[in-house]
C-alpha cells in the first residue's frame, strides 16, 4: 500500500514537472511571437508616418495650386468664389435612362432543350 503511494506521488511529480516545463516553453514562445508582432506594428507605424508625411507633402496647397495652373487647359479649375454656390432646385433631375435594348424573346444558350442553339434576338447583347 505504502509503496503504491510512493509510486503515485513520484509519477505525479514527474507529470507536473513535465507540464510546467511545457507551459514555460509555450509561454516563452508566445512572448517572442508577441514581441515580433509588436516590432512589426512599430515598423508599420513608422512606414505609415512616412506615407502620411509624403501624402501631406504631395497635397500641400502650394503644389496643388501649381498643378491646377499647369493643367488649367484640361481641368479648368479656379479658386472657389461666392457666386459658385447654387440651390438644389438649380440642379436638373437626372432623366431616367431608356434601356437601349428590350429583350423580350430570350435566347436559349444552355442547349438544355436539345437541338442546335437558336438565335432569334432582335439585336446583339450589349
Amino acid at each position, binding site marked *: 500500500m505504502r509503496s503504491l503511494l510512493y509510486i503515485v506521488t513520484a509519477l505525479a511529480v514527474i507529470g507536473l514537472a513535465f507540464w510546467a516545463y511545457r507551459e514555460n516553453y509555450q509561454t*516563452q514562445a*508566445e*512572448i517572442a511571437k*508577441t*514581441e515580433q508582432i*509588436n516590432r512589426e*506594428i*512599430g515598423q508599420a*507605424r*513608422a512606414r505609415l*508616418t*512616412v506615407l*502620411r*508625411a509624403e*501624402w*501631406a*507633402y504631395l*497635397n*500641400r*496647397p*502650394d503644389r496643388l*495650386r501649381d498643378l491646377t495652373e499647369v493643367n488649367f487647359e484640361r481641368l479648368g479649375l479656379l*479658386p*472657389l*468664389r*461666392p*457666386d*459658385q*454656390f447654387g440651390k438644389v432646385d438649380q440642379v436638373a433631375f437626372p432623366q431616367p435612362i431608356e434601356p437601349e435594348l428590350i429583350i423580350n424573346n430570350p435566347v436559349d444558350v444552355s442547349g438544355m432543350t436539345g437541338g442546335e442553339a437558336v438565335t432569334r434576338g432582335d439585336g446583339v447583347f450589349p
Partner: protein
Amino acid sequence: MIRTPLRPLARILEARASGENPDAIERENLRIRHEQMRDASRGRAEGRLLILSVIFFCAFGVIGARMGVLAATEPAEPRAASTGSAILAQRADITDRHGRVLATNFETHSLYAQPLQMIDKERVAAELAAIFPDLNQDKLLKDFTGKRKFLWIKKKLSPEQKQAVHNIGDPGLLFGPREMRLYPNGKLAAHVMGGASFGREGVHAAEVIGVAGVEKYYDDLLRDPARQGAPLALSLDLTVQAAAERVLYGGMKLMNAKGAASVLMDVHTGEIISIVSLPDFDPNARPSPLVEGDASDSPLFNRAVQGVYELGSAYKIFTAAQAMDLNLVNNQTMIDTGKALRVGGFNIGEFQKKNYGVLSVEDIIIKSSNRGTGRMALQIGVKRQKEFMKAMGFMDYTPLEIVEAKGGKPLYPERWTDLSAVTISYGHGISNSPLHLAAGYAALANGGTYIKPTIIKRTGAPEGTRVMREDTARYARQMLRKVVTEGTASFGEVQGYAVGGKTGTADKPKPRGGYYDDKVIATFASLFPAHNPKYVLVVTLDEPTETSGKKPRRTAGWTAVPVAAEMIGRVAPLLGLRPEIEPGELAGITLTSN
C-alpha cells in the same frame, strides 16, 4: 536472524563440570551482543550523516552555482509578459482642425565621423565636399587629421545623400538614426508652427525640441509618452490659411507694403481659423534671428501677435460702444464735432483738417471723427475707459498658445490722463497687436462677450466675460456695417457677405519720438456677415502706398480694405458660408434721439 543464546547449554555444562562460574559466560556473551548492537547503530548513524552531508553539499553547490551564474550574466528583466503596446517615443503630430497634417516626424540619418578608423582622409574630405556644397574640404581635412576622435558632419541626411556617402565606402564615416521634424506644407502657418531643432544628441538618438510657436509652447505635451502620440489639433484651417496667405501676399505686393498681417477668428468659439504674418519663413529651415537692427524686420517676427502698433481709428467703435453701454449716448445722439477740442494743451483735429460739424454718434463712426470720439471719451472718463480697455484684453498680452504671444505686450500710458483718454478713443496712444483688435471685434460680433482667442481646436463655445450689453453690440455692428455701405470702407463690400468694419490709419512712430509723415500702419477690422456675424477678420498692412492715383494714397480705405474684401471673397466660401441677401432693417427699431 539467529540470536546467539546468552547461556549456551553446552558451555554451561562444561563450566559447571570444571567448577567455573557459568554467569561469567553469560556476561561475556551479553558484552559481545552489546558491542555488536553499538557497531550497527554507529554504522547507521554514519550513513545518515553521509547522506545529509551529500544533500547539504548539493544544496549549497546549487546556491553557489546560481550566485556565480547571476554574477556573470548580463542583467535582464524577468519576462513574465509582453507589454501590450510599445511606447511611442515620437513627438506627436500637429494637425489642423480637419486633421490635415501640419507637422510630423520623419526618419532620417545623421552623419558622423571617427577619424581614427578612417583610411583615406584626403579622399573622404574631397568627396564629402562634393556631396555637400556647404562643407569646406580644407576644414574637414583639418578636423580629420587633428586630434579629434569624433565629429558630427551632418545632422540630417536625405536618402540620396546617404547613398552617396555610402558610396564613398570609408569605415570612418558612420550613420546614426535620427527623427526629424517635418513641416510638409513649407511656409504655411510658419509663425504658428515655429520650428524644432535637436536638443541633447547621442549617436543613436536625439531629442527633438520645439524652438518657437506652438512647438515650444506645447513642447512637454507633444513629447509626453502618455498621450501615445495623439496629434495636437489646432484651430487653423489649412485651406483657409493657404488662401489667406496667398491673398495677403498679393495685397502686400500690390500695395507696396513692407509687411502684412491678418487674423481670422471665429467670434463664438474664439478659435483662430487663420493667422498670417508676412514676410514669413520656412520652419523646416528656420533662419537665425537678427543680431542687430530692428527685430521686426526679421521674417521670424510675428506681426499678427508680436507686432504692437497704434492701430488708429479702428478703436473708435469701442469708444462709441462703451458710451452707448453706459447710456451716455445712443446711436443718434448729436455731438458737435465742429467746435475746437482742446485737451491738456493740445488741439484735437480731424483727418486732413476737415470739419464735419454736428454729427450723430453713428455718423461719427461712419465719417471717423476724432473730435466726436474724443468728446465721448471725456464723457466716459479716464477710470471707466481704462476698465473697459482692460476687460477687452487691450492691456495684457494675448493668451494665444504660442510662445511669441508674450512678446506682444501692449503699450499704454502709465499716467492715463484726459488727453490719453481722448487719443486712445481714436486709437492713438495705445499699441496693440492685430490679434488684440480681432478679439475686441469678436466681442462686438458675438453680442458683447469677450472670448479669449485660442489656436487650439475647441468643441463648443467657451463661457466668455460679458463686457457690454447685447443691444449695444448690435448697434455697434449696425454702425460698422454702415461704415462699409456709406463710409470710409466702401471698397470692403463683398456681395452676399454683408461686411461690416472700421478702418484705421495710424502714422508710424519714429524710434526717437515723433511720427513719420509718409509711413503708416493701415488696418481694417471687419466682421461678416454683419447681421449674424460668424467671423472677424483683421488685415494690417505695414507702410502701404497705393499708387494708382495722382498722389500716393496711404489710408486704410485705399489699401487694407480692398485686400480684406478680396480675402473675404476667397475665404468665406471655403468656410462654408453661403452668400445671403442681407435682411433689411426693420422699421421702428432705430432709436431716435428725441
